[in-house]
């Protein structure tokens, strides 16, 4: 075992400690706080990337916390989900923190800067802990860490809508957390263990299929809420659209994906336990995914506010991921996982560049933003690139996942699902073109558009980078699919190994 394994707890403790220190160190020196947070996020990213190279070389990175072996202690495991979403979380949080310098200065009073940066770092640590958790209660604890910081970040925005949206998010999120906790209690009462693979081994011996089924139901509903999969998405549009733009990027890009991670862990646990067939769960995910793709895209199309459109587009894309998981074929699961990572990139780029337009003009409706591309060429270009990617045109980053999911539909013998995948992409393209058309080809309708200034470099650089990566990311699709292949194999093979 190489010394690099000790970096796994560091990827959790480092951002959290930096976040806890931020309010104490910077409650007076507001401007320095941003550099502190950026440095901490960069170091966390470096830690995660070292773990990624370790995991790509030698398989899983395991760490018994405190030296206690599982199931007596808590074991952290850095697997394919860590490789995929851990590196996405580190990289995107870093870019969001760089871009948020300009946002926070306008949107938050100076006293709140250190609180904002502290919460973003705690959120990152919570996500890293959640991704590495192999112990069910540990999973719950880190879910609470990133959830509570997310509720608070929504409330950072000004205005009554944000406060109400944060409250709604808090209540729905708390109910889903309670369901997860109940499920943990049910599983612990039957097996006496909290370690997920240990529970999987021991659950069948308890001979209580109804109790196990209730636990499965609670976990699935709880994580579907966190992942905002239709019809449990109702809290998302308000929360993601009314939050400050960097927070929208963080929530829509990363935090909702954690619900999917929880769902994958749940599925693996119950596949290993092998008490009942999971066909019903897969079927549920397929149908919810289909509904989410179509309904999310239609709702996005009828919105007038730019950020609300993007929020509904997250509903669509979570639908794609659910569909891919539910199809449960190698191509579809690989596609769902790839889409998780790529959509995180695209949606962060979308919300940051849309946020730049909203920030400079103070306008949020599409019709008011007409003709803005002349005054803000870089931000508009970044938004356009990300919009083409979210629609899934080849060779953008959004194409890989959708293509693989469509292939998966063929593998599963359900070719009609290709029509759903296509229609979601076409509907998305329709509203994306409406935005692009407004920005580039319609005459300005509002005075603010004529006097708007291009966003500062601290926003332009990250959004341009995200836009370009979103645009050509599909070219790296084969490499990403190869990385996550062992993971999709493990997800599908869980339970068949013994």
């Amino acid at each position: 075992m190489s010394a690099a394994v000790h970096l796994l707890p560091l990827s959790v403790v480092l951002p959290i400690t930096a976040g806890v220190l931020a309010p104490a160190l910077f409650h007076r020196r507001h401007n320095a706080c941003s550099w502190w947070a950026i440095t901490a996020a960069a170091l966390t990213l470096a830690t995660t990337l070292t773990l990624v190279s370790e995991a790509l070389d030698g398989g899983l990175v395991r760490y018994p916390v405190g030296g206690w072996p599982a199931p007596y202690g808590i074991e952290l495991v850095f697997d394919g989900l860590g490789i995929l979403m851990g590196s996405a979380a580190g990289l995107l949080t870093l870019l969001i923190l760089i871009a948020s310098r300009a946002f926070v200065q306008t949107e938050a009073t100076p006293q709140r800067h250190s609180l904002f940066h502290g919460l973003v770092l705690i959120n990152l640590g919570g996500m890293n802990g959640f991704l590495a958790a192999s112990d069910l209660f540990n999973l719950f604890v880190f879910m609470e860490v990133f959830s509570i910081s997310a509720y608070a970040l929504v409330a950072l925005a000004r205005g009554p809508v944000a406060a109400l949206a944060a409250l709604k998010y808090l209540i729905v999120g708390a109910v889903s957390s309670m369901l997860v906790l109940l499920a943990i209690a049910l599983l612990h009462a039957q097996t006496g263990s909290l370690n997920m693979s240990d529970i999987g081994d021991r659950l069948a011996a308890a001979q209580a299929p109804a109790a196990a089924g209730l636990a499965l139901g609670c976990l699935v509903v709880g994580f579907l809420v966190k992942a905002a999969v239709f019809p449990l998405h109702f809290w998302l549009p308000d929360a993601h659209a009314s939050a400050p733009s960097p927070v929208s990027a963080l929530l829509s890009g990363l935090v909702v994906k954690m619900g999917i991670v929880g769902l994958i862990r749940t599925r693996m646990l119950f596949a290993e336990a092998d008490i009942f067939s999971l066909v019903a769960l897969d079927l549920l995910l397929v149908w919810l995914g289909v509904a989410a793709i179509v309904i999310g895209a239609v709702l996005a199309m009828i919105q007038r506010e730019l950020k609300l459109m993007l929020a509904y587009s997250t509903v669509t894309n979570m639908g794609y991921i659910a569909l891919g998981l539910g199809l449960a074929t190698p191509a579809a699961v690989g596609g769902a996982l790839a889409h998780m990572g790529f959509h995180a990139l695209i949606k962060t780029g979308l919300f940051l560049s849309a946020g730049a337009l909203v920030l400079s003009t103070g306008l949020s409706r599409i019709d008011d933003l007409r003709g803005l591309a002349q005054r803000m060429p870089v931000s508009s270009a970044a938004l356009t690139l990300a919009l083409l990617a979210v629609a899934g045109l080849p060779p953008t980053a959004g194409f890989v996942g959708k293509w693989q999911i469509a292939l998966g539909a063929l593998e599963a013998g359900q070719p009609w699902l290709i029509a759903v995948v296509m229609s979601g992409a076409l509907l998305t393209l329709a509203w994306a073109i409406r935005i692009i058309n407004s920005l580039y080809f319609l005459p300005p309708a509002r005075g603010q558009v004529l006097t708007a200034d291009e966003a500062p470099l601290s926003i332009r650089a990250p959004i341009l980078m995200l836009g370009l990566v979103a645009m050509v990311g599909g070219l790296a699709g084969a490499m990403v699919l190869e990385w996550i292949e062992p993971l999709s194999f493990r997800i599908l093979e869980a339970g068949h190994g013994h």
Partner: protein
Amino acid sequence: MRSALALVLVVVLAALMMAGVSQLPPPGEADQAVHRHVAANYLADGVEEGGTGNRVTAVLLDYRALDTYGEVVVIFAALIAVLLVRSAGGPRTQPPPRRVPVSPVVDQVIRLMTPFIALFALFMIIEGHVLPGGGFQGGVVLGALMILLSLALGPDRLRGALHTGALFWLRAVAPLAFTVSALAGLGLVGWWFALPEPGWMREFALVLLELAIGFGGAAALTGFFLSLEEDIHR
């Protein structure tokens, strides 16, 4: 109509949940899995391995220290959330209203009881690693005492007692103590979150953690109360 639908939904969900729960093993039977697997190991070896007389503390601060760390971070994040929401309204716009003094009996009783409550809280915190109790419980008692005092003496006396900067450090003390202890474990034993060896150091680390959890928890509770109190008078 809507409430009738809601009622049906609640009844159906409750029936499903009861059906699931009814299959659980009856509580208190010694041969159930829940008593024989991990918990049995804690009971058998917890005192020796965990290095404390109290097995609950061994689970909280040793076997599952990472979870406890996460929990104090949750408390910290919740406090930051409350501060964030409260400061949305900006500083207090009107002078604080004239306080209605509490009855002299209540006032005197609170003053009389203060040293005893404080002593009890401290006892629970410091002896938490050998006796039932600990930082969380003692911290709540200490926080309740602070709330009582702010009722008797007025919240502004309490607010003025600590410098804002010091207050931020006090609120952060529990997660920070865990970081220090986790690093000490890494340096001295070779694992993150291991309690340091030898025995006297382990004892020291446990008392430090309990103190930090206690004082951090009390600071968080007081912070929640003072924020709410300020909100009412805005």
